[in-house]
């Protein structure tokens, strides 16, 4: 095996999978994470049960963190970022925000995404009314054991509205992509709410439902048939308040009727933005971004996980909205490409 290590940037699902894959074939890697601990967004944002496994994030991703921690092939640098990067595939030179720099054979960027900030859709009341929250906040209410409560008074809600496509498929705010997983995550949260609070009715306001593939039965239909979650085809026009209830206005497009409905809690199913640091990452690693601001991928049929720069690979939601399962698979696949470079097989990934 090559004496030069492989650099993995980002300690979320994709990065953890890449590091573990490399270690499992005896390849050394350096795992750089800007936060003070590993785990990525599922851990740092306090996700509850993951879609579609149904396992708790702290168990599932926590398990991934455990198996890289203390592994003799993996050097973990938390609280660290890459500040300078130069050289060629097989012999890159890296400097870090702290500590000594070194030379690496290749790189896997697993820099992930940033949650959409709902404050950018002021008409939907986030930041104005405390009872308007995000899916991430509901995940935290569940994972912390507190349960789903109205932030204004701590009471259990009787009626909850989940608004889909907040920060997704919205040309007005420059986010035309579908964030792919929010439909399933919302259906999952709706079921969690119904399970915890059987008297609480949950309504999901949607434009289209994209519980793709096998998620259709597991989330879309299960939530309706077993948990009586209601799906209403309406894009909400505005969210206001009468001082207590949150008033949701829109048009039910299937019956061509305007609706003005009071809710106790309104949840924004927030989308996935490009990582806020992507401009910086792009300039440090000299990789191209695609038009939406995610890290661009080279052809999918050549070197797996290739970016615009030879020897720099990319995996997970750094490349666009991605599920955790797929991020893990991409991390493993990109690790294989990075390994080829470390072994001097440049032609294999070009």
């Amino acid at each position, binding site marked *: 095996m090559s004496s030069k290590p492989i650099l993995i940037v980002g300690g979320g699902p994709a990065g953890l999978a890449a590091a573990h894959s490399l270690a499992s074939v005896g390849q050394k890697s350096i795992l750089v994470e800007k936060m003070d601990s590993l785990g990525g967004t599922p851990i740092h944002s306090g996700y509850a049960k993951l879609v579609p496994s149904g396992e708790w994030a702290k168990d599932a991703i926590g398990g991934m963190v455990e198996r890289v921690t203390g592994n003799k092939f993996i050097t973990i640098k938390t609280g660290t970022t890459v500040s300078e990067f130069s050289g060629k595939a097989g012999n890159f030179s890296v400097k870090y925000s702290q500590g000594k720099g070194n030379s690496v054979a290749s790189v896997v960027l697993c820099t992930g995404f940033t949650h959409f900030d709902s404050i950018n859709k002021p008409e939907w009341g986030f930041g104005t009314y405390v009872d308007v929250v995000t899916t991430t906040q509901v995940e935290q209410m569940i994972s912390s054991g507190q349960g789903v409560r109205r932030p204004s008074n701590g009471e259990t809600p009787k009626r909850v509205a989940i608004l889909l496509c907040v920060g997704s498929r919205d040309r007005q705010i420059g986010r035309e992509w579908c964030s792919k997983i929010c439909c399933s995550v919302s259906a999952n949260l709706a079921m969690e709410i119904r399970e915890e609070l059987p008297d609480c*009715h949950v309504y999901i306001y949607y434009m289209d439902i994209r519980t793709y593939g096998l998620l259709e039965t597991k989330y879309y239909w299960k939530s309706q*048939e077993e948990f009586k979650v209601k799906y209403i085809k309406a894009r909400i026009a505005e969210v206001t308040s009468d001082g207590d209830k949150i008033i949701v206005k829109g048009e039910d497009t*299937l019956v061509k009727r305007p609706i003005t409905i009071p809710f106790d809690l309104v949840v924004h199913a927030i989308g996935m933005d490009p990582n806020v640091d992507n401009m910086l990452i792009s300039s440090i690693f000299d990789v191209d971004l695609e038009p939406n601001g995610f890290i661009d991928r080279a052809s999918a049929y050549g070197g797996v996980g290739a970016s615009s720069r030879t020897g720099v690979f990319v995996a997970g939601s750094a490349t666009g909205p991605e599920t955790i399962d797929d991020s893990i698979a991409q991390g493993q696949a990109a690790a294989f490409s990075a390994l080829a470079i470390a072994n001097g097989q440049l032609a294999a990934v070009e």
Partner: protein
Amino acid sequence: MAIHEKHLIRPENIKTHDNLVIDGVDVSGHWSTFIETRVVTDYNEQLEEEIAALPGGEYIHRCWQCGSCTNACTVNAINPEFNPRYWIYLIRMGMESELLRDKEIIWQCVSCNKCTYACPRDVFPEGVMKATAHWLEMKEHTAPSNSTIFDEEFTRQVVQTGKIEDGRILMNFLKNSKQPLFQDWLIEMVKQMVWNLPVKYLFGMGWATLFQPKTRSWAKTRAAIEEHIAEEKAAERAALGLDPVE
């Protein structure tokens, strides 16, 4: 002032005042025309479960609003207002006031079951229509339809005697549905029967109408059926939040 696309507005939502003066300006008549907004302000969260509790409505929760039922519908071809897909949606979302607007159309389902075969989700829309018509009657939004009155008389005879007797069913149906016994078509039919049927059959029919024969040892069966019907009815009424007994 002319209102464009007036057909989209419900007549009762168009308001005018015959005599109205605002700030000294006379806006009587059409000058004061305004249109009340059509807004859904609340959902009846129990509605879907109520319909699902009645026979035929069990699978309403499977609907994904594709419209295959409405497309296949015999009645819809004649009356576009007859739209099973739409009513299933209203019921599932709990838009009760909207559903009640169509209470005089819903019972018109002819049970041809084309929708049953067209439905990709096995909702059994025909059953849902039946359950909904049933619901409207139980909640007294509509008077019992002739078909319900007929079914009740039919069932009553079967339960009581284990048999049905055509003449008596017809007489009681006409009486219960407040229709005159002497209908032209009926008089003509009886005339033809008297002329054409062998005396033996005529005698048999007349005898059965007068004496109401019962199936042998019917009492036990009758008690069991009555108990079952009472249980079913009580369960349905409980599901609809009604008193256990009518």
